[in-house]
């Protein structure tokens, strides 16, 4: 077994009375792809936000690339170092980019922050990254308002990759895209992983997409992990009743979902 590149142990997050994440542990190997599957309220996004330092864990440990990141960073230097380890691509392509900044400028800003490259070299690097995610010259120079959702998500991926992270978190990043665009972005993600050896933490509610992307899966419900294992095993032979319910809820021909009456739920 190789050393895990991302390790999460006993992670917990509470907001006042409510427990968003309760005792979550998992690890991601270098170059691997781990999916965190769950529905709204499962705590999967909170886990992602704690790993990148946008939320502070109530308790538990997060280690990435051998460095502890359970606490919020103290110095600018540490913030930058963490930025070079883990990056994230968010769900909403429409607010993921500064509306006043072209993709080229956005990627360049990250390069200036994380690399000592001069302007000419940065320009070359921007072109490389654009090529990697499939953006052309014209799109690189356009303002976000002129780009489609899929193009914006490619920009967000390229911008994240500019910091040369070892881990990329994808938080429902393909969920809002049209099917034909979603397939393009999923292929881009496969290419990127193959060419850079980056590891993915893939947050999603969509089992079919998870199957396409992930090697391993953890299933979350109400803040806890209910099942984990290799993707094929968890999806083909789910053991936990909740995973089975999720699996059975995916529509297809001949699908007959089960009925349930809501009585106690108040919200």
């Amino acid at each position, binding site marked *: 077994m190789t050393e895990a590149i991302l390790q999460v142990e006993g992670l917990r997050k509470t907001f006042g009375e409510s427990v968003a994440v309760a005792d979550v542990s998992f690890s991601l190997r270098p170059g691997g792809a781990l999916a965190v599957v769950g529905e709204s309220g499962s705590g999967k996004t909170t886990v992602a936000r704690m790993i*990148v*330092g*946008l939320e502070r864990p109530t308790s538990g440990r997060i280690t990435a690339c051998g460095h502890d990141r359970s606490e919020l*960073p103290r110095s*600018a230097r540490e*913030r*930058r*170092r*963490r*930025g*070079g380890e*883990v*990056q*994230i691509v*968010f*769900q*909403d392509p429409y*607010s*993921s*980019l*500064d*509306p*006043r*900044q*072209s993709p*080229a*400028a956005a990627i*360049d*800003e*990250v390069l200036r*922050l*994380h690399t000592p490259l001069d*302007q000419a070299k*940065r*320009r070359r690097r*921007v072109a490389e990254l654009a090529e990697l995610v499939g953006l052309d010259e014209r799109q690189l*120079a356009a*303002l976000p*308002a002129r780009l489609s959702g899929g193009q914006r998500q490619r920009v*967000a991926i390229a*911008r*994240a990759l500019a*910091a040369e992270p070892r881990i990329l978190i994808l938080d429902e990043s393909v969920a809002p895209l049209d099917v034909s665009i979603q397939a393009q972005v999923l292929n881009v993600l496969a290419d990127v992983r193959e060419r850079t050896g980056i590891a993915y933490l893939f947050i999603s509610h969509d089992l079919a997409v998870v199957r396409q992307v992930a090697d391993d899966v953890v299933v979350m419900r109400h803040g806890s992990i209910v099942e984990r294992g290799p993707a094929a095993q968890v999806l083909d032979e789910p053991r936990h009743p909740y995973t089975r319910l999720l699996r059975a809820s995916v529509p297809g021909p001949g699908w007959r979902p089960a009925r349930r009456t809501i009585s106690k739920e108040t919200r």
Partner: protein
Amino acid sequence: MTTTLATYRTPRLGPLGTAAATVIVAAVVLAAIGPALTSADPNASDFAHAYGAPEPGHALGYDGQGRDLLARLLTGARTSLLGPLWVVALSMAVGTVVAIAAAWLGGWLDSVVSAVLEVMFAFPGVLLAMLVAAVFGPGLTSAVLALAVAYVPYIARLVRSAALAERRKPYVQALEVQGAGAVAICVRHLVPNLMPLITAQATLFFGYAMVDLAIVSFFGLGVQPPDADWGVMVASGQSGVLQGYPAESLLAGGSIVLLVVAFNVLGERLSDGRRAPRPGWFPRRGGVS
């Protein structure tokens, strides 16, 4: 490589907005070069001409003390425009900085700022100006400072909530995850994206400040006679109105109304629907929820 600013949402003023901008520019130009347009001394009174009708060299006639109305209107334009400019500049600067700091840093600073703003809402600008005039004596400076203070909570609350919303947007969070510094994010991304909002509010508030300062001067607590100011002129022209000579009050009042309409129209054109409530009118809440 620089960010492309030129093509980003250039505000489309439309014919009304353009007309409003033209009125404002014309008023500024007249205020700047005004005194050169007439040879009359705005403070020289000649009681023989009291309420005198227009005549060559005195295009708008005379006021109750026989002073040239055109000269007074043009001189008055200066204080009537400079006063609001100071009020807006001060309240915008303080309100924006405080709001962004509170929104970004959060925690106790945000709580303290919110509590202080809540109390500041209790003082309508005009009332605060009267209180300040009682304590420090009347004058334009007191009035400007009092109104600037009274406007701060309105600006700060709007900018704070806008900054909070902006801060929660993924593009700002992506920069945080990248490890960019807070100041860099604020200066290069947050503030530029809030600028359209701030500009629109500044424009609207210029109109409000103009009215409120004129009210204070109308009370005799702002610009002190014999200096010309539109608010002072409306007040001093009141006796003329009762005697059937409304020219002074109407010219000064009309100038105020014209410019306030222009600032309102322009401000509405520039704003995207979000606007701070009129200070002294609607504390805590915006007009439309």
